[in-house]
C-alpha cells in the first residue's frame, strides 16, 4: 500500500515527540545536542546558537561521530519541522537513539518568534570547493574551517621543519602565516626544504616561502620577518600570534622563545631533529609544562648536537614538520588531545615512536611565576650558566 508524503509525515509525527521552540530556547547550553539538518545553502539566514550542522542526507552516516552516546538527548530541526521529524524517527526507530526530538515549526518559526540566531560567515564558492574535504570532517567542519581562516600562526624558520609545516598550514587555509627567517635559499637546503625551488637559490627564504604559499592558496596572508630572533626583537615579533611553530636551530633562541611565549601566553609547537631521530612536544602556557620544565639548561657548546657538523636525513624534518602542522590544526579547531605534557620521540631507523611524560616543574624559574613578572632582562637568560652554545652565533 502506497501513501502520500503528507500521510507518511503525519504518521511519523505521531511516533516521535515534537518540541516547541519556546522549550528549545530554554535548553540551549544545557547539555542537549541541537542538530541543524538543513542543506548547507539554507544556512545563510542563520542557525540556532551552538547547533551542529548535519544535512538530513548525511544524518545516519554522521550522527555517531557527533553523538556517540545513544542515551544523549538530541533535538533536530530543519526549515519547517518535516525533515527533522523524519530524521528523529530514523534515529530512534532504526539506530537505537533513546531521546531524539524534532523542533516544531523549524527554523522559520524560531526566527518568527524572534529568538537569537547565529549568522555564519559564509564561504565563497571557491572556498567551499577548496576546503570541501575539511568541511566533511566532523572535527573540522564549517566552524573549524572558519577558525583556521581566522588563525594567525607564526613559523620560526622556513627551513627543514618550517617548509612542510608552512605548506600544509597554507593548504589547510590558516589565514595568516608569519615567517621569521633571515637566510637566503641555498642549494644544500633543497634536500629537505621543500617550500623553496632551484630557481630561487640566493632569494631570501621569506620571499621564496611567500611565493610558494601564495601560489598554493591565495586565501593565506603571509607576513615575512627577514630577521633573526633575539632578545631585542622577540616580543615585538611574536606578540599577537595565536600559535608559534618552533623549528629553531639553536638552544639560546629556543630558551628565549620559551620565556617570551610563557610571558605572552602563546602556545608553542616544538620539534627538533638530528640524524634519523626527532622530538616533538607542545608547550602551552597555563595548560602544561614549558621547555625549561623539560630541560633546565641547554647543553654546553661542545656537547650541543646543534652546534656540530651534523647531518639529517631529508625526509625527517618532513615527518616532524607535518606532525607539528597536525598539532597546530588540532589546537586551532580544538580537536583531539594535543601533545601537551608529553614528548614524542620518532626513531626513523627503527620506525618506532616513543612517548614520554613531561612534568611541570613547580620550581620552574619561568612558568611557575606570574607571567607579567617576567622581565625583559630575564628572557633566555641562565643566571648560573655560561659558555652558551656559540653564545648564539
Amino acid at each position, binding site marked *: 500500500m502506497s501513501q502520500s508524503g503528507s500521510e507518511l509525515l503525519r504518521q511519523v509525527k505521531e511516533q516521535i515527540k515534537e518540541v516547541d521552540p519556546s522549550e528549545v530556547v530554554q535548553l540551549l547550553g544545557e547539555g542537549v545536542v541541537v542538530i541543524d539538518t538543513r542543506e548547507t545553502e539554507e544556512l545563510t539566514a542563520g542557525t540556532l546558537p551552538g547547533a551542529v550542522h548535519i544535512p538530513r542526507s548525511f544524518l545516519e552516516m554522521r550522527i555517531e561521530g557527533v553523538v556517540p552516546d545513544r542515551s544523549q538527548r538530541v533535538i533536530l530541526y530543519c526549515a519547517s519541522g518535516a525533515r527533522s521529524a523524519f530524521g528523529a524517527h530514523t534515529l530512534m526507530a532504526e539506530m537505537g537513539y533513546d531521546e531524539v526530538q524534532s523542533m516544531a515549526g523549524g527554523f522559520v518559526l524560531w526566527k518568527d518568534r524572534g529568538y537569537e540566531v547565529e549568522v555564519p560567515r559564509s564561504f565563497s564558492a571557491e572556498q567551499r570547493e577548496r576546503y570541501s574535504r575539511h568541511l566533511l570532517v566532523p572535527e573540522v567542519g564549517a566552524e573549524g574551517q572558519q577558525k583556521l581562516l581566522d588563525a594567525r600562526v607564526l613559523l620560526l624558520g622556513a627551513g627543514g621543519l618550517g617548509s612542510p609545516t608552512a605548506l600544509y598550514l597554507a593548504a589547510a587555509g590558516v589565514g595568516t602565516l608569519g615567517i621569521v627567517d633571515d637566510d637566503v635559499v*641555498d642549494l644544500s637546503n633543497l634536500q629537505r626544504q621543500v617550500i623553496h625551488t632551484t630557481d630561487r637559490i640566493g632569494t631570501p627564504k621569506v620571499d621564496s616561502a611567500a611565493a610558494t604559499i601564495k601560489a598554493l592558496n591565495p586565501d593565506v596572508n603571509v607576513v615575512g620577518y627577514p630577521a633573526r630572533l633575539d632578545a631585542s626583537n622577540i616580543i615585538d615579533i611574536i606578540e599577537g600570534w595565536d600559535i608559534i611553530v618552533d623549528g629553531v*636551530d639553536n*638552544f639560546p633562541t629556543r630558551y628565549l622563545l620559551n620565556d617570551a611565549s610563557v610571558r605572552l601566553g602563546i602556545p608553542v609547537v616544538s620539534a*627538533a631533529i*638530528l640524524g634519523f631521530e626527532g622530538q616533538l612536544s607542545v608547550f602551552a602556557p597555563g595548560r602544561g609544562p614549558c621547555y625549561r620544565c623539560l630541560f633546565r639548561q641547554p*647543553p654546553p657548546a661542545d656537547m650541543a648536537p646543534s652546534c656540530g657538523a651534523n647531518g639529517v636525513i631529508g625526509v625527517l624534518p618532513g615527518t616532524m614538520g607535518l606532525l607539528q602542522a597536525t598539532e597546530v590544526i588540532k589546537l586551532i579547531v580544538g580537536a583531539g588531545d594535543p601533545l601537551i605534557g608529553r614528548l614524542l620521540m620518532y626513531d626513523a631507523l627503527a620506525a618506532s615512536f616513543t612517548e614520554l611524560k613531561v612534568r611541570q616543574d613547580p620550581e620552574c624559574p619561568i612558568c611557575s611565576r606570574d607571567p607579567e613578572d617576567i622581565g625583559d632582562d630575564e628572557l633566555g637568560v641562565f643566571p648560573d650558566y655560561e659558555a652558551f652554545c*656559540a653564545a648564539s652565533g
Partner: protein
Amino acid sequence: MATIRIPPVLRPSVGGEREVEADGETVGDVLANLVEAHPGTREQLFGEDGDLNHFVNVYLNDEDVRVLDGLSTAVTAADALVILPAMAGGALLALRS
C-alpha cells in the same frame, strides 16, 4: 639487565647501538654500569658533582626519574630506561656556519 635506549648523540660512545643493557638495582646503578662499560657516555650524563646533567633527562619507561626517586629509583629487569638529551634543529645551524 635493564634496557637503556641510547640517543643519537651518545651512540658513537656505545659502538653505534640504539639500545644497550646494563645491570643495576637503581637508575644510578644502571647508569654507573653503563658509564663503566662505555666511558665516553660519562661527560654527557654526569656533571662533576656526580649528578645528572641538567640538559639530559632520564626516564624509567615513560616517567621522568626526577618525579620518582631520581638516581635512587628502583629498576627491574623488565624496565627500560630512556636517555633524552636536549636537541635543537640539528643540521640547520651547521649548514649555516
